[in-house]
């Protein structure tokens, strides 16, 4: 297997965008191609979850190739729920590692704000089990809420811990010019003040409005290349050192231990094993905080902290910038936003930015090893990646 490097990265602002989906994907892609210094690629993968349903457009990758005049490159769209982005990175990695391709463009894009929030929530809910979950009116917030209630009961996580994740990540987004949310928040404002319950109502008890990521439009892109090509292009050498992917039962209630996220555990283990490192070697991490509870539980399942102690590490500031393992320093999904198909690619964008030392005021000093966890379904399809900066 050949080594695979990230030679270029690009991103759009995550917000409500008044551009067609193809242009959102293409804009991020152009930035990545310009960053890498290439105008031709062998293969394009475009991660997207909702274009047939939300934007009434199919065969997105063919449209993106045309928009970017990358013909006759191969092209395919990858739909893998909220883990579409990292699944596309994996496909691009395999294409280069196998020797079939030398230069692969991996883009992720979503335009969800074309429909209203309830329609967007319903569209994401279609990833649940059609007969055993979806027909009951289950949404992703409902799944996260039931999971949170169990986690609170079992490990002593409180609404205050969830609010601490909200505050950490939404305020981290202030240092990321591409992030969706640009208003600072406080524990006082969303939990303790008399107005807090009005500012921060329940979405699905015990989860409140500020426990969930916003609905965003946006795109992100990477250019993946072989080692020979990476050296020729002369960009900072960031290598994808490990990728793990794992699945779990479609219906969440079928899992033996309802607070386990076994696919997260296995995907992370496999990525670390492939890279030949341990969770303790990671300098900066992007975890999939579509809901605040997920950052806490993923920080345990991937091996940063022991079971049931993620919220204690959060309390001590270990997951903040300057802590032992800074998590979501660019805002995470909570602050950056969550255009579902783009998220896995945007996580990699943040890690490469950090490993290049380009993080500005959110830079993790001396970051050399990075990690991403892209969480699909409600934990039934998860992709984790490790990255390393080489000198």
């Amino acid at each position, binding site marked *: 297997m050949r080594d695979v490097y990230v030679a270029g990265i690009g991103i759009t602002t995550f917000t409500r965008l008044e551009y067609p989906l193809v242009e959102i994907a293409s804009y991020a892609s152009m930035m990545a191609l310009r960053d890498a210094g290439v105008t031709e690629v062998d293969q394009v993968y475009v991660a997207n979850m909702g274009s047939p349903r939300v934007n009434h457009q199919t065969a997105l990758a063919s449209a993106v190739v045309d928009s970017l005049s990358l013909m006759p490159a191969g092209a395919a769209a990858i739909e893998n729920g909220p883990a579409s982005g990292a699944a596309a990175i994996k496909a691009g990695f395999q294409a280069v590692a196998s020797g079939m391709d030398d230069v692969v463009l991996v883009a992720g894009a979503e335009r969800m704000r074309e429909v209203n929030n309830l329609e967007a929530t319903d569209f994401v809910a279609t990833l649940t089990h059609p*007969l055993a979950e979806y027909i*009951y009116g289950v949404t992703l917030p409902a799944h996260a809420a039931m999971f949170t209630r*169990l986690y609170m009961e079992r490990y002593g996580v409180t609404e205050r811990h969830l609010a601490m994740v909200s505050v950490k990540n939404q305020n981290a987004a202030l240092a990321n010019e591409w992030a969706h949310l640009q208003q600072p928040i406080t524990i006082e404002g969303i939990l303790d003040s008399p107005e807090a319950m009005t500012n921060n109502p*329940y979405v*699905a008890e015990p989860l409140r409005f500020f426990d969930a990521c916003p609905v965003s439009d946006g795109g992100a892109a990477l250019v993946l290349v072989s080692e020979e090509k990476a050296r020729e292009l002369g960009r900072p050498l960031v290598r994808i050192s490990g990728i793990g992917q794992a699945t779990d039962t479609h219906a969440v209630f079928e899992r033996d231990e*309802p607070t386990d996220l076994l696919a997260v555990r296995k995907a992370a283990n496999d990525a670390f094993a492939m890279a030949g490192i341990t969770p303790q070697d990671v300098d900066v991490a992007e975890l999939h905080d579509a809901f605040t509870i997920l950052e806490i539980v993923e920080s345990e399942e991937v091996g940063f902290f022991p079971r049931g102690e993620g919220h204690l590490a959060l309390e001590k500031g270990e997951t903040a910038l300057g802590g032992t393992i800074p998590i979501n320093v660019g805002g995470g999904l909570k602050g950056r936003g969550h255009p579902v198909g783009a998220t896995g690619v945007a996580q990699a964008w943040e890690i490469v930015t950090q490993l290049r030392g380009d993080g500005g005021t959110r830079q993790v000093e001396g970051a050399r090893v990075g990690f991403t966890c892209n969480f699909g379904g409600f934990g039934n399809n998860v992709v984790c990646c490790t990255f390393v900066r080489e000198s």
Partner: protein
Amino acid sequence: MDRNIYAYVCRRCGASHYPFRMVCKECKQNDFFEFDTVPLPRTGSLVTWTRVHNLPAQYEVATLGIGIVELENGMRMLGQLEIDEPEIGMAVVGEVDVVRREPYDSYYGMVFRAA
């Protein structure tokens, strides 16, 4: 009308599945449709629950109770709750009723109440 929701019992190893899948999760038998159907029990205890406030348009209620129930035979299922003050561990009993209405369709599922 008496309606049921069914578990699927593998004819080779006896493992019960809900919801339906094509291949047994335990013994991986891949003969076609080698499952017997058995109605799921109606009684059980509440594993976890939520009250959803932001509902899709077709639900004409302010909030919707949803929970996961461990049935008396140890299997679990998700259902709607018609319970004012749900609590983890409480005894519940289910009835099959309409859980979602679309313009031309009604979908049936389990609705749990306090036992």
